C-alpha cells in the first residue's frame, strides 16, 4: 500500500485529464448506491479516486457502486459471515477514501489495492477471532434476483450455501485464492499481486482448493440438483 501512496498530490489542474485514463467499468455489478451517470461510469477508477480527493461527491457514489460490491462479495465468501463481511467492506472503503489524496494514478489498479485491503482485514478478523455473536451467512436472506424464477433462486441459494460451507473447510489462503479466481474471476497474475505471492503459488492454491471443494461437494450432487449428470 505504501509503495503506491508515496506522496500527496492534490490536483491543481483538471484531475481527470491529469489522471489520463478513461475506461469502461470493469466487472461492475448491481448496487443499491445511487446510480452514477453515463459520463461518470466511463471514468477509470484512478480518475474517480483523484476526483474524490478533490472534493467531488459524485465520485464517491460511482466508486461505491463499482467497488463496494466487490469488497463485500469477497469479504462475504472469505469470512462466511454477512455482518462481518459488511464491516470489513465498509472499513476497506473507508481506507480507500482516506488514501485518496495520496493515490498515484497509473501505478496500480484501485480494485487490486482494495482487494488486498479486504483480504488483510479478513485475515485480521480471523486472527482476532471476532466471530462471536455474528449472524451466520445462511441465516440471512439473500437479495432476490428479479430475473430468476423462485425455484431457480432457491437452487442458487442452496448451491451458494453448499459452496460456502465447503469453502469454510479450506485453509485461509486456499479459500482466498479460490474466491478471487472463481467467484471474483480475477486472473492469476492479479491474484498474485493481491496476495503478494507468485503466479505458480496461486495456481497451486487454487488447484488444491478446487480438489478439496469437489470432494466436499461430491456427496451432495443429488440434493443440489445435479442428478441428471
Amino acid at each position, binding site marked *: 500500500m505504501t509503495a503506491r501512496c508515496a506522496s500527496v498530490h492534490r490536483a491543481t489542474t483538471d484531475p481527470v485529464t491529469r489522471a489520463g485514463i478513461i475506461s469502461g467499468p470493469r466487472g461492475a455489478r448491481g448496487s443499491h448506491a445511487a446510480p452514477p451517470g453515463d459520463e461518470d461510469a466511463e471514468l477509470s477508477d484512478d480518475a474517480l479516486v483523484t476526483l474524490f480527493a478533490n472534493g467531488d*461527491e459524485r465520485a464517491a457514489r460511482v*466508486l*461505491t457502486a463499482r467497488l463496494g460490491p466487490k469488497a463485500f462479495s469477497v469479504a462475504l465468501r472469505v469470512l462466511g459471515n454477512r455482518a462481518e463481511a*459488511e464491516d470489513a467492506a465498509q472499513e476497506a472503503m473507508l481506507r480507500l*477514501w482516506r488514501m485518496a489524496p495520496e493515490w498515484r494514478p497509473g501505478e496500480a489498479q484501485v480494485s487490486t489495492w482494495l482487494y488486498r485491503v479486504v483480504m488483510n482485514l479478513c485475515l485480521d478478523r480471523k486472527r482476532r477471532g471476532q466471530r462471536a455473536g455474528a449472524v451466520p451467512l445462511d441465516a440471512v436472506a439473500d437479495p432476490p434476483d428479479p430475473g430468476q424464477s423462485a425455484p431457480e433462486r432457491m437452487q442458487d441459494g442452496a*448451491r451458494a450455501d453448499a*459452496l*460456502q460451507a465447503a469453502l469454510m473447510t479450506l485453509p485461509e489462503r486456499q479459500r482466498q485464492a479460490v474466491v478471487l479466481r*472463481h*467467484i471474483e474471476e480475477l486472473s492469476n497474475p492479479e491474484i498474485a499481486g493481491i496476495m503478494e505471492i507468485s503466479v505458480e503459488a496461486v495456481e497451486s492454491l487454487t488447484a488444491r482448493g478446487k480438489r478439496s471443494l469437489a470432494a466436499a461437494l461430491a456427496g451432495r450432487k443429488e440434493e443440489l440438483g445435479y442428478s441428471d449428470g
Partner: protein
Amino acid sequence: MVENDTENSILEAHFAAARRVDADLPAGLAARMLADADRVQATWQEVGREARADGAGLWQQFLALLGGWPAMGGLATACAAGVWLGIAPPDFLPDPVGMVVAEQSSSVDLLDSYSLSSLMPEDG
C-alpha cells in the same frame, strides 16, 4: 477425465450460483460507505479552513520564515546592539559620530596669511 470434467462443471455451477447471489451491495452498507466518504471529505475541508485561519497574513508567513518569535527576538537584539555600538563605541574603535562631525567642521583656509586687500591692485 470425464469424471474430472463433470466435477469441474459442477464446481463451476456452484461458483456461478455464488456470483449471482452475491451480486448486490446491501442498501444499508452502501449508505454507510457514502456517509464515511462524506465525513472524510468534510474533514479535509475543515483542515483546509484551519490552515487558512492559522496563516492569517503575510506577517505570519514572514515570521514563520525567520523561525518564529525566538528568532525574531534574537534579530531585534542584534539590531539594538549594532545601533548602540554606532552611537557609543568602545575606546578601541574609532568614533564614527566624531569622524562625521569632524569632517563637517574642518575647513581649509586657502589664503592662509594672505590678505585679500594686498592682492587687489590699487588704483593710481
